[in-house]
């Protein structure tokens, strides 16, 4: 079985801070990480490989050259091959163009039985690229997957819903997008880290995947950022004071009631 995992290198949005004076994002010193949901997708692939020796796990990303660091991390966790789609022509892509580029890369890698992706990336939170790749590869897709069982060229998966889950049967090849409830991603092994530096990372540009510059990046994106801005800063809070504790508590509760919060 050959499983392809789509991954993205993202800024750790938990570390992103807003400059209180300028009102802009402070990106200095913000570490780049493997997108958390993608780590769950990779773990799912590696778990299938653990149970079915001979399974190959291939990781692919679209990003700038430094995304290779993240691919090394994936190799160190246990992936067998890594592909980096990197080209200035890919820059400024929205989800439509990103999925076109990744689908073109995946088509070049033959005999894929299953594509796994994270549900969404923490920088954009769109949850669109996985589904769109599936459409372009003409594969059936299940999103929000929190459990996977493979049997007889079929997958039985649990699709997370707001109030429970659906049990869904889908034939391979298919694309699944994974949520964090699926598993606990493994750590890189020391040996894996050592070996990851020996392994090649294949880099492809637009010509390698057979796309014209007009068919990728900003040129091929139907949506465009009209403007971006930092949300208005939270106004200073109010300190509630009083002569007695019950006066303070009374004042707080009436404020909450005024705003219909309780």
């Amino acid at each position, binding site marked *: 079985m050959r499983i392809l995992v789509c991954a993205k290198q993202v800024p750790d949005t938990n570390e992103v801070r807003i400059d209180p004076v300028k009102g802009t994002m402070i990106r200095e010193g913000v570490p780049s990480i493997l997108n958390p949901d993608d780590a769950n997708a990779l773990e799912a692939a590696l778990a299938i490989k653990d149970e079915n020796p001979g399974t190959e796990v291939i990781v692919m990303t679209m990003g*700038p050259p430094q995304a290779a660091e993240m691919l090394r991390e994936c190799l160190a966790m246990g992936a067998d091959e890594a592909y980096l789609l990197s080209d200035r022509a890919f820059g400024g892509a929205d989800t439509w163009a990103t999925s076109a580029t990744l689908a073109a890369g995946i088509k070049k890698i033959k005999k894929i039985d299953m594509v796994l992706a994270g549900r969404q990336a*923490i920088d954009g939170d769109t949850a669109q690229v996985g589904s769109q790749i599936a459409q372009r590869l003409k594969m059936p897709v299940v999103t929000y997957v929190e459990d996977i069982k493979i049997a007889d060229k079929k997958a039985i998966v649990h699709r997370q819903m707001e109030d429970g889950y659906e*049990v869904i049967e889908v034939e391979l090849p298919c694309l699944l997008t994974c949520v964090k409830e699926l598993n606990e991603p493994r750590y890189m092994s020391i040996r894996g880290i050592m070996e990851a530096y020996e392994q090649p990372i294949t880099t492809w540009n637009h010509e390698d995947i057979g796309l014209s510059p007009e068919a990728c990046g900003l040129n091929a994106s139907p*949506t465009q*950022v009209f*403007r971006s801005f930092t949300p208005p800063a939270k106004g200073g809070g109010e300190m509630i004071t009083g002569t007695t*504790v019950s006066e303070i508590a009374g004042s707080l509760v009436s404020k909450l009631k005024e705003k219909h919060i309780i």
Partner: protein
Amino acid sequence: MAIKVIEEKCVGCAKCQKSCPFDAITIEDKIAVIGDACTNCGTCVDVCPTDAIIQEGTEKVVKDLSMYKGVWVFAEQREGKIMPVVFELLGEGKKLAAEIGTELCAILCGSNIAGLADELFAYGAEKVYLADAPELEKYTTDGYSKVINEAIGHYKPEIVLYGATHIGRDLAPCLAVKVNTGLTADCTKLEIDPDDKKIRQTRPAFGGNLMATIVCPGSRPQMSTVRPGVMDKAAYDPTQKGEVIKLNTAFAEGDIRTKVLEIVKTTTENISISDADFIVAGGMGLGKPEGFELLKQLADKLGGTVATSRACVDAGWADHAIQVGQTGTTVKPKIYFACGISGAIQHIAGMQDSDIIIAINKNENAPIFEVADYGIVGDLYKVIPAIIEELNK
């Protein structure tokens, strides 16, 4: 569109570099250079004091967009019940349709659901496109996207809105590829550009640290998923009637490639902290693990749950499952009580998006007060019982 620097005008002041939300600008030889990370957001165009940065239009072949008319709302139903977000979309869709001067329609898919059309009319839909077939009884990506794709191709709406539910977020991206148009996810604000009548879609990105307004200039329909609970619900008027248009629902073998074997509802007895509307969190300021019992009394009173900081988990006072913060869970309740929590940045990262933050701490200089909407300096063992007593009144 692309961002360009007119080198003769650029003075290398670096204002653009500082303003760029994406770190895409560098200054080389006193000239601004736009790098790969540029998303064409135009922030630099606005700040440039010498008008040296411009946003250029591309010479794309402009498609004839004038044949696309009407605002459509995806009327998501589950088990014959219309999802609440649909009424919010109809409320918002009505405003958008009025500004453009077009009609508001709903598209309804399912099996034996024709009766729901009246409800959609009552909430303001003028037309309901109806796909009623046994194959559509349960939601499947393939089944729904097939009929909606065909309907969009045939009737050509200008705008299509979907609720950002687990179904809407599954369906809309597939349709964007099938229909060959753009899609903006999880919008929190929609408005019509008064000049060209195109939609502007605003959404949070980078974990809410940045807002982006997205446009879809050259393809139709313009599509958005919209966060539930953000828009105002449409007014209900049962006297309103409209037209039902039946859609083609012929399916061939192999059209629907997934099979829903079972739908399982999980009723969680303990509210998980990520779903709770009210959270009462305690930190080391509790002084002892027994302090959580008092917090639980307040949480029970509000119908919420108890949470904690990393320090208490490390001290063995509480379980990791209820830890809020960077290495724990991110929460956005209606009210977050931070009791005896100093407010380490890693903790704040996990709760700063709460609607209302109430901080109770002995130390008036605790950083938690900087993010709090309401702050109380005092002993939590006195303040919390007083709040409970007040709520009992």
